């Protein structure tokens, strides 16, 4: 019997850092083929609809970038947390609260023209996300409670909060009792970059966040402290880095980016709030962070990939009646494949003599 084993590399392979995610995508596609067969679909045609057709028109590209926007932004925030060993899995909730706060701003100043309104909404969105992130941060640092479970539980709470608001206090009085808010005014929405397409200027903010995240992690002392506390918590304590402060920062950054992403969606493609404002972006962002191998540029590419999966899923649902759940299965599958291939960065496969 051939027995394989993993041998640790002396230094992590740089080449594999790029090859592993590509291998993961390939592996996902290979696994997808039998899945599609089982679902009674022609694999190649479906994959074409999934990955190629969405990008074959200018509008498709606009939609692609638009969807990547919240994914990349949230992925960046989560990545910083994961680097510090802070397992925030509640970005979905922070996104929701961010959107709620931004919407409250928008509805509060619904009349007239306010040039500052978008900026104020962004601030409100970030503060909302940070508020939601402050709960697990407080409980973690003061009361030693797992941030994983708390942040996740708060996601359900945030969704119920949204549901209550759009059915009650924030419901559109002229809305025929539909559970939704009024449409935001022009001052409270991003205007399209190109007429007829939904892409708006908020993508530039996300794009700007990528080098900022890089600067934080690779060049700043704060980023260094975050990385040390993630890679070797006892070394961080030994060096005198304040663990509690780092946990707060990691969660607040995650909250701010998620809240801002929620604002981008509310003031961008949505233009109002309804009970469901996210097709699971907060969870997909976890995958984005990992696909990007917890590096800023990687997260950018990972966000584009996941966005394509969303878009492909929609296209396939419309043109081939592929269930919407297919794209969520692909997302999970992609993360599973990536975790497996990522081992190649630190290890090489050897044949046991």
């Amino acid at each position: 019997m051939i027995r394989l084993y993993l041998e640790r590399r002396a230094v992590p392979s740089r080449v594999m850092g790029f090859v592993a995610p590509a291998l993961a995508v390939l592996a996902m596609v290979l696994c997808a083929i039998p899945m599609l067969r089982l679902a009674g679909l022609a694999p190649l045609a479906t994959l074409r609809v999934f990955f190629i057709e969405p990008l074959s028109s200018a509008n498709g590209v606009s939609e692609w970038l638009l969807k990547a926007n919240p994914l990349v932004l949230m992925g960046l925030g989560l990545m910083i947390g994961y680097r510090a060993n802070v397992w925030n899995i509640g970005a979905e909730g922070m996104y929701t609260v961010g959107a709620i706060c931004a919407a409250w701003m928008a509805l509060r100043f619904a009349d007239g023209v306010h040039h500052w309104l978008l900026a104020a909404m962004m601030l409100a969105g970030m503060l909302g996300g940070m508020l939601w992130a402050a709960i697990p941060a407080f409980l973690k640092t003061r009361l030693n409670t797992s941030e994983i479970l708390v942040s996740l539980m708060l996601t359900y709470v945030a969704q119920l909060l949204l549901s209550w608001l759009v059915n009650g206090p924030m419901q559109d009085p002229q809305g025929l009792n539909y559970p939704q808010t009024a449409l935001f005014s022009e001052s409270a929405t991003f205007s399209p970059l190109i007429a007829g397409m939904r892409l708006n200027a908020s993508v530039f903010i996300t794009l700007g966040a990528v080098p900022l995240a890089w600067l934080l992690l690779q060049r700043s002392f704060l980023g260094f402290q975050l990385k040390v506390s993630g890679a070797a918590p006892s070394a961080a304590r030994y060096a005198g880095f304040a663990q509690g402060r780092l946990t707060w920062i990691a969660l607040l950054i995650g909250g701010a980016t998620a809240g801002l992403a929620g604002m981008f969606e509310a003031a961008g493609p949505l233009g109002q709030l309804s009970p469901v404002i996210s097709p699971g972006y907060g969870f997909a962002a976890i995958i984005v962070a990992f696909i990007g191998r917890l590096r800023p540029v990687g997260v950018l590419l990972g966000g584009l990939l996941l966005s394509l999966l969303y878009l492909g899923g929609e296209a396939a649902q419309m043109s081939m009646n592929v269930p919407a759940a297919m794209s969520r299965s692909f997302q999970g599958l992609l993360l599973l494949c990536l975790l497996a291939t990522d081992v190649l960065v630190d290890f090489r496969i050897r044949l046991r003599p």
Partner: protein
Amino acid sequence: MNQLIIPLLDGTLVAATPLIFAAIGELIVERSGVLNLGVEGMMLVGAAAAFGMALHGQSPAAAICVAMIAAALMASLFALLALGLAVNQYAAGLALTISGSGLASLIGRHFGARSGTTIARVHLQGLSDLPVVGKVLFGQDPLVYLALALAVMAWWFLNRTRPGLVLRAVGEAPEAARAIGYRVLRIRYLAILTGGAMAGLAGAYLSLAYTPLWVDDMTAGRGWIAQALVVFATWKPARVVLGAWLFGGVTVAQLFAQTFGLQIPPQFMSALPYLATIVVLVAISRNPQTLRLNTPLSLAQPFRPDH
């Protein structure tokens, strides 16, 4: 008064049952030193598999078996990553939850609003007809009793048998366990499979007995609550049961409050189980000693034997 108390107690036992299954399974996994955050995903796959079988007219027993096998297969996937490749267990568990929820929706896409075979309640001549306690204690479906039996068995296994001792030893110090001749990865694999099967059983209970209708994401975070229960129970089976009853109680009470038309928005009531989870987690974690003395020492740390 009995009109209120009996359904409340009855509902509590029923609502606690899937939590007990899933939490006892995860407890076994964590006692072996592995953290599998994929409980929610495995439960969903189990629920979908069982519901599918029931729709096709299979017996509840067959549906449950298929659910357990399906969830155990998911668990194997996790084991391949977390044990075989020793990857980060948090990430692998999350990946399992995400894939599981997608896969379950995929399986369930044609289920529609039909329902299939469900699990009947037992009826014991004489006992079940007793006033007040009759229905609550002796008129449940068999799985309610099975959940309690499994909790007792888990306690007995961990504290009174050699394999249970070995499992705890592996969870505390895998290197030391290997040094005295135990196959750490094999033992952990068996624990993960058991946890998967139990999560499948929990899911099957949801879709066959608790709410025999298919809804996407029908677990609604119960996998995560089970995960929290394990911490709350400080890894002790008896306390898992207590915790599950507490949560069952909260869940049922808020449903009752909603139907009785209390002047509180239903969303607030629905949020109670999640808030209660946070409250109990805080209560148990506040004293770092409690957790440190009870947490399996190697929890979530990948183990790679030398060559």
